[in-house]
């Protein structure tokens, strides 16, 4: 307890003696943690959208190729009888080839093939989009079906690529900002080691242990980190109230409303303040290793 008080008093003394740099380090942490705080919920949101979308879109059942017309008819009757299926659309081999041709940049590419390799298929739209998984489970075992029944890839792929973009750009941004905050905190600590070189010298002289000498500096770094983290949580709270909540309430898209729960603000705040503290501790720790030889 007594030591703890000593460490805190010394750390505060040190922060007071170079306010400017401590503020700079704190602001860098603030920006880093803010971006992290904006990134985590948006990433989780997009991820949840992808998952939700996956379960809601049409499913495609590919048939054996070749297949007897009677088999196709039997399968078609089965689909028509299924109460969960809203509609279905038969895509013949020729249809499939036409669709692919349209999608390819080179329309003559298909002509190179000796025969049409594409199987016939049914595109099935469920009555309730949330039931598509059950429909798949029911139809998968049918003898007419070849290979696994799949969700329509196009929509999910698009969403996935958006998710991936957010993921990577966010990650890159966070790494850059993290490096900047580590360097700035490190620099702050380096200067305060310099400012307190007399104290450090005396401490060594009278036989203070290495960790006793280091603690005030670590606390100083963690302090900058935690304050930066707290400030960014406040900032995020402001953004949430004024922008995000507003947008969620006025949005007419059912999608956004029922999947808006990505991460609770309290747990997010805890994560962010924790991240700030870790950045602060790491920044000062790395500097102490290099500049405080005892």
């Amino acid at each position, binding site marked *: 307890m*007594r*030591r703890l008080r*000593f460490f805190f008093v010394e750390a505060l*003394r040190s922060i007071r003696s170079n306010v400017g740099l401590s503020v700079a380090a704190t602001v860098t942490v603030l920006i880093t943690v803010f971006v992290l705080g904006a990134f985590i919920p948006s990433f989780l949101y997009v991820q949840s959208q992808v998952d939700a979308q996956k379960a809601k879109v049409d499913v495609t059942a590919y048939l054996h190729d070749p297949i007897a017309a009677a088999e196709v008819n039997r399968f078609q009757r089965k689909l028509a009888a299924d109460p969960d299926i809203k509609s279905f659309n038969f895509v013949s081999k020729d249809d499939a080839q036409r669709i692919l041709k349209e999608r390819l940049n080179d329309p003559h590419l298909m002509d190179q093939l000796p025969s049409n390799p594409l199987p016939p298929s049914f595109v099935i739209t469920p009555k309730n989009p949330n039931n598509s998984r059950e429909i798949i489970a029911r139809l998968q075992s049918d003898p007419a079906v070849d290979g696994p029944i799949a969700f329509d890839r196009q929509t999910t792929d698009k969403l996935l690529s958006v998710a991936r973009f957010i993921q990577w750009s966010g990650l890159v941004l966070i790494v850059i900002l993290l490096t900047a905050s580590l360097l700035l905190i490190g620099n702050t600590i380096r200067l305060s080691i310099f400012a307190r070189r*007399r*104290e450090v*010298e*005396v*401490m*060594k*002289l*009278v*036989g*203070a*242990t*290495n960790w*006793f*000498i280091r603690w005030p500096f670590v606390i100083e770094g963690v302090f900058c980190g935690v304050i930066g983290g707290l400030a960014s949580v406040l900032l995020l709270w402001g953004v949430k109230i004024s922008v995000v909540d507003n947008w969620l309430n006025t949005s007419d898209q059912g999608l956004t409303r029922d999947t808006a729960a990505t991460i609770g603000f309290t747990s997010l705040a805890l994560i962010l303040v924790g991240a700030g503290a870790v950045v602060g501790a790491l920044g000062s720790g790395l500097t102490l290793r290099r500049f405080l030889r*005892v």
Partner: protein
Amino acid sequence: MVVFENVSKRYPGDIVGLDDVSISIDAGEFVFLVGPSGSGKSTAVRLMLKEFDASEGRIQIGGRDLSNLRRSKVPYLRRSIGCVFQDFKLLTDRTVYENVAYGLQVIGESGESIRRKTPEALRLVGLSDKADRFPHELSGGEQQRVSIARAFMNHPRLLIADEPTGNLDPETSIGIIQLLYRINRTGTTVVMATHDRDLVNRMQMRVIALDEGRVVRDQRQARYALAD
């Protein structure tokens, strides 16, 4: 208390700090380490504090072999040694009391023990009435007394003083040396590096003279130089 056995210290660039020095100082002695600047006095002091290791030879302090002493144990070695320097090494933004108490705070002494020992140490050096002053409000001699109070707080068995009177006028210096002598009388071994000729001659203590890193004279009840 202090034993140097064939100790050499070379700095990078082939600069010789100490060259095959053997010294033995008993507990309770008062020893002057004399010689011109660059003779190796400071090297000897810094070796005793294990600020660095000897290139060759063995050093023992209070029976502890410094070359075997792990880095992490160095703080505990230093707690058993009091240190006084030419530049006082006081913290300018703290009062006399805080400066002395700081020495105990950073080795984790209890608040109660600090409150008991600090006034006692200030009384010993005769600065009880200046406890709340800042170092810049004191004379050089008084500042050195503060640093002696800090060094003597834990009643170390060995007190090392590196040119403690280097920045002080002759009269003040005498006051400081008398203080060190009084500390010595309590049983603390005192090793004082100096090139203050008058002071050494006045005290008539054991003198170890260094020159270019070698011991050139080791004599009891001696003067600064043979010719004096």
